[in-house]
């Protein structure tokens, strides 16, 4: 399962966090700080997977934002890359050429979309059209 989703900017500012496993507030801050350190310092040509504390973290950089998802050891990293891309495409469709500013000022909408995509750390809907339809209906 996906344990948490993290969106951080290149300067290390948090744009979105979603936790599917129990992490206390203190733990959350610690995790964010550590992971930001690890991911933001990775070079561009390196692979998108990082081993971290017994978990795997899959991250992908889109423009100025890093989308990170933390998964278990036995999960399929390539699939999670696809899930990240799925999310980004849905955001793009919804906002129309999404940029970081859209996500800052409309963070609650980004959350609603994420909630249509993932529940309990698992994928909910493989069709972008369906997700878009559901969002516009609510």
């Amino acid at each position, binding site marked *: 399962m996906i344990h948490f989703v993290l969106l951080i900017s290149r300067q290390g500012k948090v744009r979105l966090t979603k936790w599917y496993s129990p992490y206390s507030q203190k733990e959350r801050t610690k995790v964010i700080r550590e992971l930001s350190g690890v991911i933001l310092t990775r070079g561009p040509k390196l692979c998108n997977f990082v081993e971290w504390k017994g978990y795997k973290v899959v991250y992908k950089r889109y423009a100025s934002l890093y989308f990170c998802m933390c998964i278990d050891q036995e999960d399929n990293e390539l699939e999670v890359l696809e899930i990240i891309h799925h999310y980004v495409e849905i955001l793009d469709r919804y906002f129309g050429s999404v940029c970081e500013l859209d996500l*800052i000022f409309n963070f609650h909408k980004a959350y609603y979309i994420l909630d249509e995509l993932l529940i309990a750390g698992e994928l909910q809907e493989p069709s972008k059209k369906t997700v878009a339809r559901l969002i516009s209906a609510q």
Partner: protein
Amino acid sequence: MNPFSSETRLRDMIRAIRACKTAAEERAVVRKECAAIRASINENDPDYRHRNIAKLMFIHMLGYPTHFGQMECLKLIASAEFPEKRIGYLGLMLLLDERQEVLMLVTNSLKQDLNHANQYIVGLALCALGNICSAEMARDLAPEVERLLQFRDPNTRKKAALCAIRIIKKVPDLAENFINPAAALLKEKHHGVLITGVQLCTDLCKVSPEALEHFRKKCTEGLVRTLKDVVNSPYAPEYDIAGITDPFLHIRLVRLLRVLGQGNADASDLMNDILAQVATKTESNKNAGNAILYECVETIMSIEDNGGLRVLAINILGRFLSNRDNNIRYVALNMLMKAITVDTQAVQRHRATILECVKDSDASIRKRALELVYLLVNESNVKPLTKELIEYLEVSDQEFKGDLTAKICSIIAKFSPEKIWYIDQMLKVLSEAGNFVKDEAWHALIVVISNASDLHGYSVRALYRAFQTSAEQETLVRVAVWCIGEYGDMLINNVALLDIENPITVTGSDAVDVVEVSIKRHTSDLTTKSMSLIALLKLSSRFPSCSERIRDIIIQNRGSLVLELQQRSIEFNSVIEKHQNIRSALVERMPVLDEATFIGRRAGSSPAIVPTSNSASLNLPNGVAKPPAAPLVDLLDLSSDDVPAPSSSGGGFLQDLLGGVDLLPGLNQTAISGTNEAPRTGTDILLDLLSIETSPTQSSSSITDILSSSQGDKSPVASLGEISSPPSLSTRATSAGADPMMDLLGGFSPNPPMPDNGPVYPSIVAFESSSLRITFDFSKAPGNPQKTTILATFTNMSQSIYTDFIFQAAVPKFLQLHLDPASSNTLPASGNGSITQNLRVTNSQHGKKSLVMRMRIAYKFNNEDILEEGQINNFPRGL
């Protein structure tokens, strides 16, 4: 308008915060905003509640504390308006986690919302429940979720399925309720419901074995058919990703098939065809295709064997390995590690590519590749592989060096075909990355060097050369210093020059230079300096001309603030000055440390590798016939980590004690440092184990049985504590009560003449103190040279009588000891009588090893319990 009132729109607040130029400014803005929100909460104003929560969520993301908003979320959830509910649930999911008790208050609202007419509200509730419910909430609301699994709206069904996953993870007992509804979901057509249904089934199988059985029997065929449909389906724009229809569904289905096929041949048969189809037909130029192939390979490797499929899988991995995309290579390396247990040969074919990956610029790939290489090493490829790895060591990053060094040392130790190669490679590693080499590795090197007597000269010369170039590597310095101390005479006389070597000119003074440099360098730590001091002492005996100079160097440490150095320098100085007569005997060549046992121990404690290579590693030739000096046997070679034996039964008890770590599984070998630690803890443990009161497994009546049960086949356990100096020996020997120098000489007997083969052996005083004397008289039966009968006589040297006198003895494994009952257990005072006891010893290494015994005596003296113990090293030769 006050920019921080509740009337401020969310957008404006965000803008205001972003406009702040410094962190202090931002904090001020946030503080004002929180104050306004708190005021608004106190007023209980319903209009701005959802705006407040939205603002609070943003502030939370910035990292500020926002717990005062939690109750507001609850109020919003209870509201009748959809937007308010929505933001309330979102706030709930963000600001709270399942461990907070406030969450329980939501249960009622959730229950109502789960029964709501509006399907979107049901969806909100399911989403919230699925993301953060606690175990109690799960139990309460499980029936609702179960019902919703059959709801008319597919979007609700899919959310219910994922919510159910969380419920069964939190409360596994409820799993059985979900089995049937989940099976029904597998027949759905809607992709969202199908995906979530498949995921639910997968998790059910993990949690409940009945679910696994049920799905395996009833659903495998259906799943295979569904997968076939998806694979063969025509272009569907809604689900298309990179030309593949719904890769997510492909992957989930393949994963569920894996869970069902694992360990079950019938299920595996059913899926062979479709897996082959997926493996061959899927396009692998895009990530989506590769993701499916990856999952497919995982499944093929996990289910029951089908030769053709496995070959297919490994081929796919081979292709992945040469892909330019880092991600794919990483994933391939991962899979190959699992594949190695299944088919080593196939993986070996890719060895060259894997070796290339060790040098990759990506740290994650390097790490994986190194682990994989480690698993691939065997006797035939160890030389080229090691060569490559050592070459890489020179250019690798600092962070990687530690791992790489550890692995290289491990490979060298396990698979080295001959000693000279081992020494060469270790020297290269030490010169390159000595500072990363762990203690066990260089200890092992010293053991090997000392065992390879024909290579002593070669080693010391090579180390001398290496020192000239790489003296900054601490461990290299330590090994060099030890060797120069031991074999310094070979160094300057070019003794035992091998054909491949060139002679070098080194004078005694040069050798002393090396040691002096290592002592004086401020980067040297305590171990290096201590080792240097003892090396100097040895050199002062081997090169008498440098004795004065050496003494000067030693004296400089007399005032050292470190106790160890101070003690050593004072003692050695005194040896050099006043005790020249015993000096040469004192620093004689070290007896050989027993290699096979040491290596056996290390092989047992190393990380798991492919089983076939383990047996080979223990066959290293133990090069050299043991030198005539009696090996120093520390019978209790237990490092401070070990708490041996209470778990073993009485008979094997002493065997475990003496065999030590071979028999106790999973022991962690800590470095046996060159200090006084090992012998002392050994003593303590012996104390505990042989103690009648404390040992739980020992029955008091059968002490003699236990003590005489040592087996004869394994070689004695040697102690690496002997790398250190005589003071540690003297600490141990003092417990015997005898003059320390005497015992040292007894242990280090000089190169003897032919062992005494006559039937008469001189009696020895085995133990002497102010209170007790023990003498041993020996006799051997003719025709059976291995058996010796010892008559032990105990005499009381004190003024009071001893009662409850008990003698106990322990011997190393190559000896067998039988104790006959003693003549009495009361020992009259002042030598007015004595106790005698017969001991029968069988020496399975008769002629090669001499007797050694450790003993302990317990008696009552003036109603006090007294314990004395000691080691008897002065058995006559040839027993």
